[in-house]
Protein backbone atom coordinates (compact mmCIF):
# COMPACT_ATOMS: atom_id res chain seq x y z
CA UNK A 1 0.00 0.00 0.00
CA UNK A 2 2.63 2.48 1.10
CA UNK A 3 6.21 1.89 0.20
CA UNK A 4 8.98 4.27 1.19
CA UNK A 5 12.57 3.61 0.34
CA UNK A 6 15.59 5.66 1.31
CA UNK A 7 13.63 8.89 1.35
CA UNK A 8 15.70 12.03 1.78
CA UNK A 9 14.95 15.71 1.98
CA UNK A 10 17.59 18.36 2.24
CA UNK A 11 17.06 22.05 2.81
CA UNK A 12 19.60 24.72 2.05
CA UNK A 13 19.94 27.18 4.82
CA UNK A 14 21.84 30.43 4.88
CA UNK A 15 23.90 30.80 8.00
CA UNK A 16 23.70 34.27 9.42
CA UNK A 17 25.90 35.73 12.03
CA UNK A 18 23.90 37.55 14.68
CA UNK A 19 22.97 41.20 14.33
CA UNK A 20 22.40 43.52 11.43
CA UNK A 21 26.05 43.26 10.40
CA UNK A 22 25.69 39.51 10.09
CA UNK A 23 22.55 39.92 8.02
CA UNK A 24 24.25 42.31 5.65
CA UNK A 25 27.22 39.98 5.31
CA UNK A 26 24.88 37.07 4.60
CA UNK A 27 23.23 39.14 1.90
CA UNK A 28 26.42 39.55 -0.09
CA UNK A 29 28.41 36.49 0.85
CA UNK A 30 26.00 33.85 2.08
CA UNK A 31 27.30 30.77 3.81
CA UNK A 32 25.08 27.91 2.79
CA UNK A 33 24.57 24.89 4.92
CA UNK A 34 22.68 21.78 3.95
CA UNK A 35 20.23 20.54 6.52
CA UNK A 36 19.21 16.93 6.21
CA UNK A 37 15.66 17.04 7.50
CA UNK A 38 14.95 13.48 6.42
CA UNK A 39 17.96 11.28 5.97
CA UNK A 40 17.23 7.96 4.31
CA UNK A 41 13.99 6.65 5.75
CA UNK A 42 12.44 3.39 4.58
CA UNK A 43 9.27 1.67 5.72
CA UNK A 44 6.11 0.15 4.34
CA UNK A 45 2.52 0.07 5.44
CA UNK A 46 -0.15 -2.53 4.65
CA UNK A 47 -3.68 -1.74 3.57
CA UNK A 48 -5.97 -1.03 6.50
CA UNK A 49 -3.09 -0.60 8.93
CA UNK A 50 -2.84 2.28 11.39
CA UNK A 51 0.72 3.44 11.74
CA UNK A 52 1.90 5.80 14.44
CA UNK A 53 4.68 8.06 13.38
CA UNK A 54 6.49 9.47 16.35
CA UNK A 55 9.60 11.38 17.18
CA UNK A 56 10.69 14.44 19.12
CA UNK A 57 10.09 17.96 17.83
CA UNK A 58 12.09 18.64 14.70
CA UNK A 59 12.70 14.95 14.01
CA UNK A 60 11.36 15.24 10.47
CA UNK A 61 7.90 13.73 10.95
CA UNK A 62 6.02 16.52 9.23
CA UNK A 63 8.56 16.62 6.42
CA UNK A 64 7.97 12.92 5.73
CA UNK A 65 4.19 13.41 5.80
CA UNK A 66 4.52 16.39 3.46
CA UNK A 67 6.52 14.30 1.01
CA UNK A 68 4.03 11.44 1.21
CA UNK A 69 1.17 13.83 0.53
CA UNK A 70 2.88 15.43 -2.44
CA UNK A 71 3.43 18.85 -0.85
CA UNK A 72 7.21 18.60 -0.83
CA UNK A 73 9.41 17.07 -3.48
CA UNK A 74 11.93 14.61 -2.03
CA UNK A 75 15.62 15.29 -2.68
CA UNK A 76 16.05 11.59 -3.41
CA UNK A 77 14.47 8.25 -2.66
CA UNK A 78 11.18 6.63 -3.52
CA UNK A 79 7.75 6.88 -2.05
CA UNK A 80 4.94 4.98 -3.67
CA UNK A 81 1.42 4.98 -2.34
CA UNK A 82 -1.15 2.73 -3.96
CA UNK A 83 1.24 2.32 -6.86
CA UNK A 84 1.42 6.07 -7.42
CA UNK A 85 4.24 8.52 -6.94
CA UNK A 86 2.77 11.61 -5.23
CA UNK A 87 4.77 14.20 -7.17
CA UNK A 88 4.25 12.56 -10.54
CA UNK A 89 0.55 13.07 -11.05
CA UNK A 90 -0.40 15.10 -8.03
CA UNK A 91 -3.98 15.83 -8.99
CA UNK A 92 -4.83 12.18 -9.57
CA UNK A 93 -2.94 11.07 -6.49
CA UNK A 94 -4.52 13.43 -3.96
CA UNK A 95 -7.97 12.18 -4.92
CA UNK A 96 -7.10 8.96 -3.16
CA UNK A 97 -5.79 10.45 0.05
CA UNK A 98 -7.09 12.61 2.86
CA UNK A 99 -4.85 15.00 4.75
CA UNK A 100 -5.40 16.76 8.06
CA UNK A 101 -2.93 19.14 9.60
CA UNK A 102 -3.83 19.69 13.22
CA UNK A 103 -1.94 22.96 13.28
CA UNK A 104 -3.69 24.65 10.40
CA UNK A 105 -7.09 24.26 8.93
CA UNK A 106 -7.64 23.61 5.26
CA UNK A 107 -11.20 24.86 5.41
CA UNK A 108 -12.32 28.24 4.18
CA UNK A 109 -12.44 30.66 7.02
CA UNK A 110 -15.65 32.48 6.13
CA UNK A 111 -17.70 29.66 4.68
CA UNK A 112 -20.37 27.85 6.66
CA UNK A 113 -19.32 24.27 7.22
CA UNK A 114 -22.16 22.91 5.12
CA UNK A 115 -21.07 25.11 2.19
CA UNK A 116 -17.50 23.99 2.67
CA UNK A 117 -18.53 20.38 2.18
CA UNK A 118 -20.59 21.31 -0.86
CA UNK A 119 -17.51 22.92 -2.41
CA UNK A 120 -15.36 19.90 -1.57
CA UNK A 121 -17.98 17.65 -3.11
CA UNK A 122 -17.45 19.48 -6.40
CA UNK A 123 -13.69 19.51 -6.10
CA UNK A 124 -13.55 15.75 -5.54
CA UNK A 125 -16.45 15.06 -7.90
CA UNK A 126 -18.35 13.01 -5.35
CA UNK A 127 -21.69 11.76 -6.81
CA UNK A 128 -24.86 13.00 -5.07
CA UNK A 129 -26.00 9.73 -3.54
CA UNK A 130 -22.49 8.92 -2.34
CA UNK A 131 -22.23 12.39 -0.82
CA UNK A 132 -25.46 11.95 1.12
CA UNK A 133 -24.37 8.59 2.44
CA UNK A 134 -20.97 9.92 3.38
CA UNK A 135 -22.35 12.97 5.16
CA UNK A 136 -24.71 10.78 7.19
CA UNK A 137 -21.84 8.54 8.20
CA UNK A 138 -19.48 11.38 9.07
CA UNK A 139 -22.22 13.18 10.95
CA UNK A 140 -22.79 10.14 13.06
CA UNK A 141 -19.10 9.51 13.74
CA UNK A 142 -17.93 13.08 14.26
CA UNK A 143 -21.18 14.70 15.45
CA UNK A 144 -21.11 17.65 13.12
CA UNK A 145 -24.81 18.44 13.36
CA UNK A 146 -24.60 21.03 16.11
CA UNK A 147 -22.28 23.35 14.19
CA UNK A 148 -22.73 22.48 10.54
CA UNK A 149 -24.37 25.82 9.74
CA UNK A 150 -21.70 27.94 11.46
CA UNK A 151 -18.88 29.60 9.56
CA UNK A 152 -15.52 27.93 10.14
CA UNK A 153 -14.09 30.99 11.89
CA UNK A 154 -16.59 30.63 14.73
CA UNK A 155 -15.80 26.98 15.51
CA UNK A 156 -13.94 25.94 18.63
CA UNK A 157 -10.68 24.08 18.14
CA UNK A 158 -12.32 20.73 18.87
CA UNK A 159 -15.16 21.39 16.45
CA UNK A 160 -12.74 22.62 13.82
CA UNK A 161 -10.63 19.51 14.10
CA UNK A 162 -13.72 17.31 13.69
CA UNK A 163 -14.74 19.44 10.72
CA UNK A 164 -11.28 19.11 9.20
CA UNK A 165 -11.25 15.35 9.63
CA UNK A 166 -14.71 15.07 8.06
CA UNK A 167 -13.53 17.24 5.17
CA UNK A 168 -10.60 14.93 4.55
CA UNK A 169 -12.87 11.87 4.44
CA UNK A 170 -15.66 13.12 2.23
CA UNK A 171 -14.26 11.46 -0.88
CA UNK A 172 -13.60 8.11 0.87
CA UNK A 173 -9.82 8.23 0.58
CA UNK A 174 -7.80 5.04 0.71
CA UNK A 175 -5.13 6.59 2.88
CA UNK A 176 -5.63 9.17 5.60
CA UNK A 177 -2.72 11.25 6.84
CA UNK A 178 -3.23 12.88 10.21
CA UNK A 179 -0.53 15.27 11.35
CA UNK A 180 -1.10 15.92 15.06
CA UNK A 181 -4.88 15.44 15.01
CA UNK A 182 -5.28 15.85 18.78
CA UNK A 183 -2.98 18.79 19.39
CA UNK A 184 -4.34 21.30 21.86
CA UNK A 185 -7.56 19.43 22.53
CA UNK A 186 -9.11 18.59 25.88
CA UNK A 187 -9.36 15.01 27.12
CA UNK A 188 -12.99 14.45 26.12
CA UNK A 189 -12.57 15.80 22.60
CA UNK A 190 -9.36 13.81 22.19
CA UNK A 191 -11.30 10.71 23.11
CA UNK A 192 -14.05 11.46 20.60
CA UNK A 193 -11.54 12.02 17.85
CA UNK A 194 -9.66 8.83 18.62
CA UNK A 195 -12.90 6.83 18.58
CA UNK A 196 -13.86 8.42 15.30
CA UNK A 197 -10.52 7.57 13.72
CA UNK A 198 -10.82 4.01 14.96
CA UNK A 199 -14.32 3.66 13.58
CA UNK A 200 -13.33 5.05 10.20
CA UNK A 201 -10.42 2.66 10.01
CA UNK A 202 -12.66 -0.29 10.92
CA UNK A 203 -15.63 0.53 8.73
CA UNK A 204 -13.88 1.85 5.62
CA UNK A 205 -10.64 -0.06 5.90
CA UNK A 206 -8.83 3.27 5.50
CA UNK A 207 -5.10 3.07 5.99
CA UNK A 208 -4.12 5.68 8.56
CA UNK A 209 -0.78 7.34 9.14
CA UNK A 210 -0.75 9.46 12.22
CA UNK A 211 1.86 11.66 13.82
CA UNK A 212 1.46 12.77 17.37
CA UNK A 213 3.18 13.82 20.54
CA UNK A 214 0.47 12.28 22.65
CA UNK A 215 1.53 8.71 23.22
CA UNK A 216 -1.88 7.67 24.42
CA UNK A 217 -3.08 8.36 20.86
CA UNK A 218 -0.59 5.79 19.71
CA UNK A 219 -1.35 3.25 22.40
CA UNK A 220 -5.07 3.45 21.78
CA UNK A 221 -4.99 3.53 17.99
CA UNK A 222 -1.92 1.94 16.52
CA UNK A 223 -0.44 -1.48 16.66
CA UNK A 224 2.70 -0.43 14.96
CA UNK A 225 4.96 2.57 15.29
CA UNK A 226 7.78 4.06 13.33
CA UNK A 227 9.97 6.26 15.44
CA UNK A 228 12.31 8.76 13.86
CA UNK A 229 14.87 11.10 15.27
CA UNK A 230 17.16 13.59 13.51
CA UNK A 231 15.78 12.43 10.17
CA UNK A 232 16.64 8.78 10.72
CA UNK A 233 14.48 5.84 11.65
CA UNK A 234 15.26 4.58 15.15
CA UNK A 235 12.50 2.01 15.64
CA UNK A 236 9.98 0.23 13.46
CA UNK A 237 7.76 -2.43 14.93
CA UNK A 238 4.79 -3.29 17.06
CA UNK A 239 4.23 -1.49 20.31
CA UNK A 240 4.18 -4.85 22.09
CA UNK A 241 7.62 -5.56 20.67
CA UNK A 242 8.89 -2.26 21.93
CA UNK A 243 7.51 -3.08 25.34
CA UNK A 244 8.93 -6.56 25.23
CA UNK A 245 12.39 -5.43 24.13
CA UNK A 246 12.66 -2.66 26.62
CA UNK A 247 10.13 -3.98 29.09
CA UNK A 248 12.81 -5.54 31.27
CA UNK A 249 13.19 -2.08 32.72
CA UNK A 250 11.39 -1.93 36.05
CA UNK A 251 10.89 0.89 38.47
CA UNK A 252 11.11 0.34 42.21
CA UNK A 253 9.45 3.10 44.19
CA UNK A 254 9.44 3.47 47.93
CA UNK A 255 9.18 5.99 50.72
CA UNK A 256 11.86 6.01 53.39
CA UNK A 257 10.93 6.39 57.03
CA UNK A 258 13.97 8.59 57.49
CA UNK A 259 15.13 10.59 54.50
CA UNK A 260 18.74 10.45 55.66
CA UNK A 261 18.76 6.68 55.24
CA UNK A 262 19.38 7.14 51.55
CA UNK A 263 23.11 7.10 52.26
CA UNK A 264 22.79 3.48 53.30
CA UNK A 265 21.79 2.46 49.82
CA UNK A 266 24.45 1.97 47.22
CA UNK A 267 22.96 -0.11 44.44
CA UNK A 268 25.71 0.51 41.95
CA UNK A 269 28.36 -0.87 44.27
CA UNK A 270 26.27 -3.73 45.60
CA UNK A 271 25.32 -5.07 42.20
CA UNK A 272 28.38 -3.67 40.44
CA UNK A 273 26.03 -2.44 37.75
CA UNK A 274 26.54 0.33 35.23
CA UNK A 275 24.69 3.65 35.12
CA UNK A 276 22.65 2.23 32.23
CA UNK A 277 21.26 -0.60 34.31
CA UNK A 278 20.42 1.23 37.49
CA UNK A 279 19.32 4.81 37.81
CA UNK A 280 18.23 6.46 41.01
CA UNK A 281 16.09 9.51 41.52
CA UNK A 282 15.13 10.88 44.88
CA UNK A 283 12.74 13.51 46.07
CA UNK A 284 13.12 13.82 49.84
CA UNK A 285 12.00 10.53 51.29
CA UNK A 286 10.53 9.35 48.00
CA UNK A 287 12.96 7.23 46.03
CA UNK A 288 12.57 5.69 42.62
CA UNK A 289 15.09 3.27 41.23
CA UNK A 290 14.89 2.32 37.57
CA UNK A 291 16.69 -0.93 36.89
CA UNK A 292 17.19 -3.56 34.24
CA UNK A 293 15.62 -6.77 35.51
CA UNK A 294 17.91 -8.83 33.29
CA UNK A 295 20.95 -7.54 35.12
CA UNK A 296 19.51 -7.45 38.63
CA UNK A 297 16.54 -9.58 39.59
CA UNK A 298 13.51 -8.02 41.24
CA UNK A 299 13.99 -10.30 44.24
CA UNK A 300 17.60 -9.21 44.84
CA UNK A 301 16.61 -5.61 44.48
CA UNK A 302 13.83 -5.89 47.03
CA UNK A 303 15.72 -7.93 49.58
CA UNK A 304 18.75 -5.63 49.45
CA UNK A 305 16.59 -2.54 49.84
CA UNK A 306 14.56 -3.96 52.72
CA UNK A 307 17.67 -5.22 54.50
CA UNK A 308 19.31 -1.79 54.40
CA UNK A 309 16.49 0.63 55.22
CA UNK A 310 13.02 0.89 56.78
CA UNK A 311 10.37 1.81 54.26
CA UNK A 312 6.79 3.03 54.59
CA UNK A 313 5.56 1.85 51.26
CA UNK A 314 7.10 -0.01 48.34
CA UNK A 315 6.10 -1.09 44.84
CA UNK A 316 7.60 -2.29 41.57
CA UNK A 317 6.14 -1.27 38.19
CA UNK A 318 6.71 -2.17 34.54
CA UNK A 319 8.15 0.43 32.28
CA UNK A 320 5.37 2.18 30.39
CA UNK A 321 5.63 3.15 26.75
CA UNK A 322 6.21 6.77 27.59
CA UNK A 323 9.14 5.87 29.76
CA UNK A 324 10.66 3.72 27.04
CA UNK A 325 10.26 6.41 24.44
CA UNK A 326 11.70 9.03 26.73
CA UNK A 327 14.74 6.88 27.15
CA UNK A 328 15.07 6.31 23.43
CA UNK A 329 14.80 10.05 22.73
CA UNK A 330 17.49 10.66 25.28
CA UNK A 331 19.58 7.98 23.59
CA UNK A 332 19.81 5.89 26.71
CA UNK A 333 18.62 2.89 24.79
CA UNK A 334 19.93 1.99 21.39
CA UNK A 335 17.58 0.17 19.10
Amino acid at each position, binding site marked *: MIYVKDLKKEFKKTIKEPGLKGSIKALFKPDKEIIKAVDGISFSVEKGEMLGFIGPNGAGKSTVIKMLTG*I*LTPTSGICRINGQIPQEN*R*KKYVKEIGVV*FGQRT*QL*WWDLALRETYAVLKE*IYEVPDDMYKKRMTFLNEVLELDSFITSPVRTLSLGQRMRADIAASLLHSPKVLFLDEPTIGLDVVVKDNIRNAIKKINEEDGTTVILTTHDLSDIELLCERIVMIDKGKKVFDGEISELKHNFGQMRTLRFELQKAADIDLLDYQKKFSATQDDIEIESDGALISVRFNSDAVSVEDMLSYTLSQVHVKDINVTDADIEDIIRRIYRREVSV
Partner: protein
Amino acid sequence: MKRVLKLHSIFIAQYLKRLMEYKVDFLIGATGILLSQFFQIVFIGIIFSQIPALQGWSYYEILFIYGFSLIPKGIDHLFFDNLWMVGYQIVRKGDFDKYLTRPINSLFYVIVEKFCVDALGELVMGIALLCVSIPHLSMPFYWYTIPLVLVALVFSTMIYTALKTVTAAISFWTKASGHITHMLYMTNDFSKYPVTIYNNFVRTFITYIIPFAFTAYYPACFFLTGENPLFNIGGTVIAGVVLLAIALFVWNKGVSAYESAGS
Protein backbone atom coordinates in the same frame (compact mmCIF):
# COMPACT_ATOMS: atom_id res chain seq x y z
CA MET B 1 -13.17 23.17 -18.79
CA LYS B 2 -16.79 22.72 -17.82
CA ARG B 3 -15.66 21.63 -14.39
CA VAL B 4 -13.36 24.64 -14.12
CA LEU B 5 -16.25 27.00 -14.86
CA LYS B 6 -18.51 25.16 -12.45
CA LEU B 7 -15.97 25.38 -9.64
CA HIS B 8 -15.36 28.99 -10.43
CA SER B 9 -19.05 29.84 -10.28
CA ILE B 10 -19.37 28.00 -6.94
CA PHE B 11 -16.53 30.01 -5.47
CA ILE B 12 -17.94 33.27 -6.79
CA ALA B 13 -21.34 32.42 -5.33
CA GLN B 14 -19.71 31.63 -1.99
CA TYR B 15 -17.75 34.83 -2.22
CA LEU B 16 -20.84 36.91 -2.83
CA LYS B 17 -22.47 35.30 0.20
CA ARG B 18 -19.44 36.24 2.23
CA LEU B 19 -19.66 39.74 0.83
CA MET B 20 -23.11 40.15 2.29
CA GLU B 21 -21.52 39.57 5.66
CA TYR B 22 -18.84 42.20 5.16
CA LYS B 23 -20.83 44.90 3.37
CA VAL B 24 -18.97 47.79 4.92
CA ASP B 25 -15.61 46.39 3.86
CA PHE B 26 -16.81 46.13 0.26
CA LEU B 27 -18.27 49.62 0.19
CA ILE B 28 -15.10 51.17 1.58
CA GLY B 29 -12.88 49.18 -0.80
CA ALA B 30 -14.85 50.01 -3.94
CA THR B 31 -15.34 53.65 -2.95
CA GLY B 32 -11.61 53.96 -2.27
CA ILE B 33 -10.66 52.69 -5.69
CA LEU B 34 -13.32 54.81 -7.38
CA LEU B 35 -12.08 57.90 -5.55
CA SER B 36 -8.42 57.34 -6.34
CA GLN B 37 -9.29 56.89 -10.03
CA PHE B 38 -11.49 59.96 -9.89
CA PHE B 39 -8.67 62.14 -8.60
CA GLN B 40 -6.32 60.90 -11.30
CA ILE B 41 -8.89 61.93 -13.89
CA VAL B 42 -9.24 65.34 -12.23
CA PHE B 43 -5.48 65.63 -12.44
CA ILE B 44 -5.52 64.92 -16.19
CA GLY B 45 -8.33 67.48 -16.49
CA ILE B 46 -6.20 70.11 -14.75
CA ILE B 47 -3.25 69.47 -17.07
CA PHE B 48 -5.44 69.81 -20.15
CA SER B 49 -7.02 73.01 -18.87
CA GLN B 50 -3.53 74.50 -19.27
CA ILE B 51 -2.40 72.87 -22.50
CA PRO B 52 -4.41 71.99 -25.63
CA ALA B 53 -2.67 68.73 -26.47
CA LEU B 54 -0.02 66.38 -25.13
CA GLN B 55 2.48 65.45 -27.80
CA GLY B 56 -0.30 65.59 -30.37
CA TRP B 57 -2.81 63.69 -28.20
CA SER B 58 -6.03 65.46 -27.37
CA TYR B 59 -7.78 65.39 -24.01
CA TYR B 60 -10.39 62.86 -25.12
CA GLU B 61 -7.83 60.61 -26.73
CA ILE B 62 -5.91 60.51 -23.46
CA LEU B 63 -9.13 59.79 -21.61
CA PHE B 64 -9.86 56.94 -24.00
CA ILE B 65 -6.42 55.37 -23.46
CA TYR B 66 -6.73 55.85 -19.74
CA GLY B 67 -10.20 54.32 -19.65
CA PHE B 68 -9.12 51.42 -21.80
CA SER B 69 -6.16 50.71 -19.49
CA LEU B 70 -8.48 50.37 -16.50
CA ILE B 71 -10.57 47.57 -17.98
CA PRO B 72 -7.99 44.73 -18.28
CA LYS B 73 -6.51 45.89 -15.00
CA GLY B 74 -9.96 45.70 -13.42
CA ILE B 75 -10.68 42.25 -14.86
CA ASP B 76 -7.38 40.97 -13.57
CA HIS B 77 -8.07 42.55 -10.21
CA LEU B 78 -11.57 41.05 -10.11
CA PHE B 79 -10.59 37.44 -10.78
CA PHE B 80 -6.91 37.00 -10.05
CA ASP B 81 -6.27 39.11 -6.98
CA ASN B 82 -5.27 36.25 -4.68
CA LEU B 83 -1.89 36.02 -6.42
CA TRP B 84 -0.82 39.01 -4.36
CA MET B 85 -1.28 36.98 -1.20
CA VAL B 86 0.94 34.19 -2.52
CA GLY B 87 3.89 36.57 -2.64
CA TYR B 88 3.07 38.35 0.58
CA GLN B 89 2.25 35.51 2.95
CA ILE B 90 0.78 32.27 1.67
CA VAL B 91 4.17 30.77 0.81
CA ARG B 92 6.10 32.34 3.67
CA LYS B 93 3.71 31.03 6.29
CA GLY B 94 3.47 27.58 4.75
CA ASP B 95 -0.21 28.02 3.99
CA PHE B 96 0.45 26.96 0.42
CA ASP B 97 0.27 23.37 1.71
CA LYS B 98 -3.47 23.32 1.44
CA TYR B 99 -3.44 24.26 -2.24
CA LEU B 100 -1.45 21.13 -2.92
CA THR B 101 -3.69 18.66 -1.13
CA ARG B 102 -6.70 19.09 -3.40
CA PRO B 103 -7.15 17.45 -6.80
CA ILE B 104 -7.22 20.69 -8.74
CA ASN B 105 -4.44 22.73 -10.29
CA SER B 106 -2.74 24.75 -7.57
CA LEU B 107 -2.64 27.97 -9.59
CA PHE B 108 -6.31 27.62 -10.45
CA TYR B 109 -7.14 26.93 -6.80
CA VAL B 110 -5.27 30.02 -5.62
CA ILE B 111 -6.98 32.17 -8.22
CA VAL B 112 -10.46 30.85 -7.78
CA GLU B 113 -10.43 31.28 -4.03
CA LYS B 114 -10.77 35.03 -4.15
CA PHE B 115 -13.05 37.22 -6.12
CA CYS B 116 -12.25 40.85 -5.54
CA VAL B 117 -15.33 42.99 -6.03
CA ASP B 118 -13.38 46.13 -5.16
CA ALA B 119 -12.25 45.92 -8.77
CA LEU B 120 -15.69 47.09 -9.82
CA GLY B 121 -14.35 50.56 -8.96
CA GLU B 122 -11.82 50.29 -11.78
CA LEU B 123 -14.21 48.63 -14.21
CA VAL B 124 -16.97 51.19 -13.68
CA MET B 125 -14.52 54.06 -14.06
CA GLY B 126 -12.94 52.52 -17.16
CA ILE B 127 -16.25 51.99 -18.91
CA ALA B 128 -17.44 55.47 -17.90
CA LEU B 129 -14.32 57.06 -19.41
CA LEU B 130 -14.82 55.18 -22.67
CA CYS B 131 -18.44 56.30 -22.79
CA VAL B 132 -17.46 59.91 -22.15
CA SER B 133 -14.59 60.03 -24.62
CA ILE B 134 -15.93 58.02 -27.59
CA PRO B 135 -18.61 60.58 -28.69
CA HIS B 136 -15.89 63.24 -28.90
CA LEU B 137 -13.60 61.13 -31.08
CA SER B 138 -13.94 60.28 -34.72
CA MET B 139 -12.79 56.68 -34.47
CA PRO B 140 -12.75 54.39 -37.50
CA PHE B 141 -15.27 51.59 -37.12
CA TYR B 142 -15.05 48.27 -38.96
CA TRP B 143 -17.08 45.09 -38.62
CA TYR B 144 -14.20 43.55 -36.72
CA THR B 145 -13.67 46.37 -34.25
CA ILE B 146 -15.85 44.83 -31.53
CA PRO B 147 -14.29 41.32 -31.79
CA LEU B 148 -10.84 42.94 -31.70
CA VAL B 149 -11.77 44.89 -28.58
CA LEU B 150 -12.62 41.59 -26.91
CA VAL B 151 -9.40 39.98 -28.13
CA ALA B 152 -7.38 42.94 -26.88
CA LEU B 153 -9.08 42.82 -23.48
CA VAL B 154 -8.53 39.08 -23.04
CA PHE B 155 -4.85 39.22 -23.90
CA SER B 156 -4.17 42.46 -22.00
CA THR B 157 -5.66 40.83 -18.91
CA MET B 158 -3.43 37.84 -19.60
CA ILE B 159 -0.39 40.12 -19.53
CA TYR B 160 -1.35 41.42 -16.09
CA THR B 161 -2.14 37.99 -14.71
CA ALA B 162 0.97 36.35 -16.13
CA LEU B 163 3.26 39.05 -14.71
CA LYS B 164 1.61 38.67 -11.33
CA THR B 165 1.94 34.89 -11.51
CA VAL B 166 5.66 35.06 -12.30
CA THR B 167 6.39 37.49 -9.50
CA ALA B 168 4.22 35.53 -7.06
CA ALA B 169 6.04 32.32 -8.02
CA ILE B 170 9.39 33.91 -7.15
CA SER B 171 8.33 33.54 -3.53
CA PHE B 172 8.67 29.76 -3.81
CA TRP B 173 12.41 30.37 -3.81
CA THR B 174 12.68 33.62 -1.87
CA LYS B 175 9.76 32.98 0.57
CA ALA B 176 8.30 36.42 -0.02
CA SER B 177 7.95 38.38 -3.24
CA GLY B 178 4.97 40.65 -2.67
CA HIS B 179 7.16 43.70 -2.98
CA ILE B 180 8.49 42.56 -6.33
CA THR B 181 4.93 42.26 -7.60
CA HIS B 182 4.17 45.67 -6.16
CA MET B 183 7.20 47.27 -7.77
CA LEU B 184 6.35 45.77 -11.14
CA TYR B 185 2.77 46.81 -10.79
CA MET B 186 3.77 50.41 -10.24
CA THR B 187 5.32 50.53 -13.70
CA ASN B 188 1.91 50.00 -15.23
CA ASP B 189 1.11 53.61 -14.38
CA PHE B 190 3.23 54.48 -17.41
CA SER B 191 0.94 52.55 -19.68
CA LYS B 192 -2.05 54.74 -18.95
CA TYR B 193 -0.57 57.50 -21.13
CA PRO B 194 0.64 57.43 -24.75
CA VAL B 195 4.12 55.91 -24.86
CA THR B 196 5.17 58.63 -27.33
CA ILE B 197 5.44 61.11 -24.46
CA TYR B 198 8.25 59.09 -22.85
CA ASN B 199 11.94 58.89 -23.68
CA ASN B 200 13.40 55.89 -25.48
CA PHE B 201 14.37 53.98 -22.39
CA VAL B 202 10.91 53.99 -20.78
CA ARG B 203 9.31 53.31 -24.14
CA THR B 204 11.47 50.25 -24.80
CA PHE B 205 11.04 49.07 -21.24
CA ILE B 206 7.25 49.08 -21.24
CA THR B 207 7.03 47.73 -24.77
CA TYR B 208 9.54 44.88 -24.82
CA ILE B 209 10.66 44.15 -21.28
CA ILE B 210 7.62 44.54 -19.07
CA PRO B 211 5.10 44.96 -21.89
CA PHE B 212 2.47 46.93 -20.02
CA ALA B 213 2.14 49.25 -23.01
CA PHE B 214 0.34 46.40 -24.76
CA THR B 215 -2.35 46.43 -22.11
CA ALA B 216 -3.50 49.92 -23.00
CA TYR B 217 -1.66 52.28 -25.29
CA TYR B 218 -1.04 50.02 -28.30
CA PRO B 219 -4.48 48.44 -28.57
CA ALA B 220 -6.14 51.79 -27.75
CA CYS B 221 -3.98 53.37 -30.44
CA PHE B 222 -5.35 50.96 -32.99
CA PHE B 223 -8.94 51.68 -32.02
CA LEU B 224 -8.26 55.41 -32.19
CA THR B 225 -6.47 55.46 -35.54
CA GLY B 226 -7.08 52.10 -37.20
CA GLU B 227 -3.35 51.95 -37.95
CA ASN B 228 -1.00 49.04 -37.72
CA PRO B 229 -3.32 46.31 -36.34
CA LEU B 230 -0.59 43.71 -36.69
CA PHE B 231 1.67 45.38 -34.17
CA ASN B 232 -0.93 47.00 -31.98
CA ILE B 233 -3.25 44.03 -31.52
CA GLY B 234 -0.94 41.21 -32.62
CA GLY B 235 1.68 42.46 -30.17
CA THR B 236 -0.83 42.26 -27.35
CA VAL B 237 -1.72 38.69 -28.29
CA ILE B 238 1.91 37.60 -28.56
CA ALA B 239 2.93 39.33 -25.33
CA GLY B 240 0.00 37.71 -23.52
CA VAL B 241 0.69 34.22 -24.81
CA VAL B 242 4.46 34.36 -24.29
CA LEU B 243 4.13 35.75 -20.77
CA LEU B 244 1.50 33.18 -19.85
CA ALA B 245 3.76 30.36 -21.04
CA ILE B 246 6.62 31.76 -18.97
CA ALA B 247 4.31 32.19 -16.00
CA LEU B 248 3.07 28.60 -16.09
CA PHE B 249 6.60 27.31 -16.46
CA VAL B 250 7.93 29.35 -13.54
CA TRP B 251 4.92 28.49 -11.39
CA ASN B 252 5.35 24.74 -11.92
CA LYS B 253 9.09 24.95 -11.22
CA GLY B 254 8.28 26.98 -8.13
CA VAL B 255 5.78 24.47 -6.79
CA SER B 256 8.40 21.71 -6.87
CA ALA B 257 10.84 24.00 -5.07
CA TYR B 258 8.26 24.87 -2.41
CA GLU B 259 9.63 24.23 1.07
CA SER B 260 6.59 24.70 3.28
CA ALA B 261 7.13 25.95 6.84
CA GLY B 262 7.73 24.23 10.12
CA SER B 263 4.75 23.19 12.16
